[in-house]
């Protein structure tokens, strides 16, 4: 896909907005539709689009395997860590009310952190599956 000028230009225009939209879906998930899972998938889709147009090595250079693998584990750890923080601060597992002085504020903070954990894991898993599928054999980028 080295020569597809229109695809390359359009992808370059679209990808920043896709990443921004993923963050919007994530942080606006408290008020409108959306949340960690959707945001993670959109984020991964933006990177996958980049990989499709510019080739897998370019995508791997931008988001290296080590980062992706740390994301897969990091999201779950963040989620479980928020739960354990609840225990440490004197509540139950995954009880967010104790995370801040005001219980409602604590709930809000807990939900944001937990959704962020979901985003990290989902985006990491989607990207990793794409990397290992496209990295086998000849690879999508050489069609």
């Amino acid at each position: 896909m080295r020569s597809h000028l229109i695809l390359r230009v359009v992808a370059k225009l679209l990808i920043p907005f896709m990443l921004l939209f993923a963050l919007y879906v994530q942080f606006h998930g408290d008020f409108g539709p959306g949340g960690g899972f959707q945001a993670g998938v959109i984020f991964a889709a933006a990177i996958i689009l980049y990989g499709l147009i510019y080739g897998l090595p370019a995508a791997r250079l931008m988001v290296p395997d080590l980062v992706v693998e740390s994301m897969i584990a990091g999201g779950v750890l963040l989620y479980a860590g928020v739960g354990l923080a609840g225990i440490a601060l004197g509540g139950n597992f995954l009880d967010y009310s104790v995370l801040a002085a005001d219980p409602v504020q604590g709930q809000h903070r807990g939900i944001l952190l937990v959704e962020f954990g979901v985003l990290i894991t989902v985006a990491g898993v989607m990207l990793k599956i794409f990397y290992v599928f496209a990295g086998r054999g000849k690879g999508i980028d050489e069609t």
Partner: protein
Amino acid sequence: MTIVVTLAITLQRNLFAVVVMSGIYSFLMATALVVLDAVDVAMTEAAVGAGVSTVLLLGAIHLTQGNETRPLRKPLLPLVVALGVGAALIYGTLGLPAFSDPQAPIHVHVAPHYIEQAMAETGVPNVVTAVLASYRGYDTLGETIVVFTAGIGVIALLRRRRRRE
């Protein structure tokens, strides 16, 4: 519309066309979910079903071959099983309460509490997010671990083969 696409998917032997049509099917499902006011699920269906999985299936076709081989025998027994299970499922839906019936069991148990108290208890206006992340936080943790396990499984399966080549 979905029936037409489904029939086309089963009859088509060119796998590239099948993948493209399953993308169309996912977008139709997303539209149906928007009509049912489940925007969150519609978003996921459009992004995962039509976007990411189409790319992954195309990658899989690229690794194998583009046409489905003809079956050696007529698959009659699977057809009978599929029709039987389908008929049983349709019979099962007849026992469900009417769509959006306010007296349905699911609407009189904990749902009223969530709808009335979610804003006061969690400070999050979107009830879906409040239920997902706070009231049912334990379930969502389990879901995240399922995604995590799926990722680890794919890594374990595909990475070893690459090293062998």
